[in-house]
């Protein structure tokens, strides 16, 4: 299975996303923001980073890129898309997901090992999790506060579209402790924490067993492979 990873100017976690796809058993395909040809990939990851410096609004400039436009078009046809951190911001700016992401409540960039709960396991990227499974993956952002109007929030909750919720601490002031969302169809998922940084033992978050041995993020990428096989 070929999974594309888009690199924008200022993208940082693209190689990490590619490594995670490889570790899950998929074939990563590097994609370039300026190219609307996304090489017939079976799914796309919009990785983390600071596309265009995150100036103006995070993800706003990247949302205009030819590759993003193509992803928006194909997402409507069911292409699985995962937006991580800056990728989530790009999805929001592209209107593939509702609401907005603003400056963290405490005003600082924050990097921490974050516990979250998986509340929707029917998406393309979460089907291997147990309902309400609690996992730990790194979080690192300065603009991760999720906001939306009261109606939007109500709709998201009613339609079970909140996929991930923060546990223990709400690290950025997100409404309803929202860490990640999906679209109506369940093929597009965006979240602030970074599953790709918890896919290789030795380089992930700490666990009770050993330093940096957490690999809870691996299931995101295995899930999409499974969804693609079943599709």
């Amino acid at each position, binding site marked *: 299975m070929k999974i594309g990873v888009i690199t924008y100017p200022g993208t940082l976690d693209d190689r990490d996303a590619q490594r995670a796809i490889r570790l899950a058993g998929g074939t990563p395909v590097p994609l370039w923001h300026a190219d609307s040809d996304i090489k017939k990939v079976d799914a796309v990851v919009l990785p983390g980073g600071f596309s265009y410096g995150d100036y*103006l*609004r995070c993800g*706003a400039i990247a949302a*205009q890129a030819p590759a993003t436009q193509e992803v928006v078009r194909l997402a409507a046809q069911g292409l699985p898309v995962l937006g991580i951190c800056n990728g989530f911001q790009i999805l*929001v*700016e592209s209107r593939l997901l*509702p*609401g*907005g992401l*603003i*400056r*963290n*409540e*405490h*005003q600082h960039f924050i990097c921490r090992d974050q516990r979250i709960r998986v509340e929707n396991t029917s998406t393309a990227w979460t089907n291997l999790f147990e309902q309400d499974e609690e996992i730990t993956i790194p979080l690192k952002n300065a603009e991760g*506060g999720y*906001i*939306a*109007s009261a109606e939007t929030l109500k709709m998201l909750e009613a339609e079970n579209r909140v996929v991930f919720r923060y546990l223990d601490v709400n690290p950025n*002031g997100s*409404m309803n402790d929202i860490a990640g969302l999906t679209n109506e169809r369940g093929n597009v998922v965006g979240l602030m924490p970074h599953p790709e940084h918890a896919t290789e033992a030795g380089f992930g978050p700490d666990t009770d067993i050993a330093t940096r041995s957490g690999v809870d993020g691996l299931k995101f990428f295995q899930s999409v492979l499974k969804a693609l096989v079943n599709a």
Partner: protein
Amino acid sequence: MPKIIVEIMPKQDLLDPPGKAVANALKRSGHNDIVNVRIGKRIELHFDRPITQADLDSAGRVAASFLSNDVIEDVVAITKED
């Protein structure tokens, strides 16, 4: 230099963490009469020729579609300065 000035504010009923932080700091330093602070953007678009009505129209479109995000922000003013 001729310029068009676009002013954008966070939506009234949505959170504005930087504004809140500044409001708290002002309160701590005794400015009790300021009940609230909101922080938005002032974007200057510079031209090297006089600005036309067409420029203003086009700036309005850019302001609504790209410079601001209407889910979380409002364009509160578009003015020109010669």
